[in-house]
C-alpha cells in the first residue's frame, strides 16, 4: 500500500548516495539547471501573489484571540 515514493533514509555523514547528491553539489548538469529554472519560476509566481510590502502585511495581520 505504499503509493509514496520510496526514499532511502541516509544518516548525515553518510556520503554514499550519488544520485541524491542534488542542489549545490553538481552544478552544471541538465537536471540541476532544470531545477534552478523551476525554482526561479516558482519564486516569480510567489512574487505575483504576495502583497509587495511584506512588513505592512505581517504587521497588519492582527486578530482578536480565539479559543
Amino acid at each position, binding site marked *: 500500500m505504499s503509493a509514496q515514493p520510496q526514499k532511502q533514509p541516509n544518516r548525515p555523514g553518510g556520503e554514499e548516495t550519488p544520485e541524491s547528491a542534488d542542489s549545490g553539489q553538481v552544478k552544471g548538469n541538465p537536471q540541476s539547471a532544470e531545477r534552478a529554472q523551476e525554482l526561479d519560476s516558482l519564486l516569480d509566481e510567489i512574487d505575483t501573489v504576495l502583497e509587495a510590502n511584506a512588513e505592512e502585511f505581517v504587521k497588519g495581520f*492582527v486578530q482578536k484571540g480565539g479559543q
Partner: protein
Amino acid sequence: MDRRIYGVETEFGLIHRPASDQLPGRGLPPDELARYLFRPVVEFGRSSNIFIPNGSRLYLDVGSHPEYATAECDDLIDLIASDRAGEMIMHHLALAAEQRIAADGFTGQVYVLKNNVDSAGNSYGSHENYLIPRTTHFRRLSGILLPFLITRQIIAGAGRVVPGDEETPPHFAFSQRADHMWEGISSATTRSRPIINTRDEPHADAATHRRLHVIVGDSNMSSTTSLLRYGSTDLVLRMIEAGVPVGDFELENPIGAIRQISHDLTGQARVRIRGGEEMTAVQIQRGLLERIQRFVAEQGDHHEHVGQVLELWERALTAVETGEHHLIDTEIDWAIKKRLVDEVAAQRGLAMGHPRLEQLDMAYHDVHPERGLFHLLVRRRRAQEILTEAKVEEALITPPSTRAAVRGEFLSTARAFGAETTVDWVHHKLIDRPLEAVMVKDPFPVRDERVESLLDKLGDRSTQLRELSIQERSQRAVSLALSDKYALAAQAEPAEPPVI
C-alpha cells in the same frame, strides 16, 4: 472502537488589506469584516451560527473568528474532505465580502488564513474531537495521550517562522500552537488553554460515550499531514481502549516540553519522563509507534489507510532524527513550508527574521486556491494531495454517512417546505411542532425513523419536492454549501436576491 466518530473545528484568521494606493495602513476592523464575511450566512440561515445542509456548523466565534466545525465523520478521508470544504466555504464568503466591500466604496482584498497565530501573538485553534467509550479510564488515557500529543508536532506540525525577540533569534519551529498551550488537562479553553479539554459534552449517549476534545493541534493545510495527524491519534486511542500496555512516557513538565520540542528542529531536545530518564520527542514517538505496529500486526488494519499512516509516521520520524527533511517535504506541512522558506531565503538572500519569510508562513495558510501558497505548491507538485476536487465538492453539499445525514436531510427538507427549525448536534426541532422534537443520540446511523415521520408531516416529499442539480444550486448562492438541496416541485422558484 473500530468505528469512531471524528470531527474538527477550525478557527480562521481574517484580514482586509486595502489597495495600497488608497487608505494607507489598516483595513476594516475585525468585527466589521466578520460581519461582511458572514452576511451570506445570515441571509441563508438568519443567524451567524448555523448548521448547513452538509451537516456541518458555520459560525462566528469569540473574537470575531469565522469558524467551521465539520459534521460527524466516521472515515478519515471524509473528515479531511469536510475540513477542506470548510476552507472552500470561507474562500467563497471572502470573494462575496470583497464584492460587497467594493460596492460600499472601499477597495482591497480579503484574506482568510487557516493558521493559528497572528503577528501580535494571538492564537486560535484547530480542535479535534474523538468519540471514545465511556468505559475508557480517563486517567490512564491522559497519561498515555498527553506525551503522544506533546510530541505529535514533529510529525504533524504546520511549521512556523518565529520572529526573534530579546532572548531568541528568529528561527523555524515545528508548531504554530505549541507556545500557546498553558496546561495539560483542564475544562477551560479560552482562559487557560489545555492540551486535552475535559469539557464533557458527548453529543451522544452519555452513558456509553464521551467526547475527547483535543485543542493542541496546528491547523493543517496538507491532506497527507492531516491523515497522519488523525490516523495516528486514532491508533493510539485504539490501543488505549484495547487495554494494551503502551509504556510509560508521562512527562514531568508537559508545557515546558511542548515548547522545547517545538523550537528544536534537530529533534535532539531532551525532555524528562516523570521519575525517570530524559528522552527526545523522536524516542517517545518511536516507542509509541513500535507498540502500535505490533498491535496492528496482531489485530489487523481496521481501515484502509492504516498502512499509509504507519509508513508516513515512520518516515517522518526518520526525517527528523536524521535531519533528512526531504524524506517528507511534500507530505508534512512543516517540512513543505520549511523547504519553501529555506529556498526563498537562499535565492533572494534574505536572513531569518526578514518579514518576507514571515509573510510566506502566513500566505502558506491562505485558503484562496490561486493566491494561497500551499495550493500553489500543490499545483507545482511540491506538495502531495489525496483529496480530489470531486470529493471536496461533494463534501460541500453532502453530509458524511453518519448522523450528519439525518441532520442534513432534516434541514434541507424543512427549508424546502418553508418550515422553521432549530437543530444542534443531537436535536431536530420544527418550530411549529416543538413537542415533537427528536433527539438522536446515536451518532452513527444515517437514518432515524422518528425524524422521517416528523418530516412526513410537512408534506409528501416524493411528489412535492424536486432535487436541484449542482448547476441550479451554484447559480443561486455565494457558495454551493449555502444552497438549497430541494425546491417545491410544481412551483416556479422566486429569484434569489441580488448579491449586494
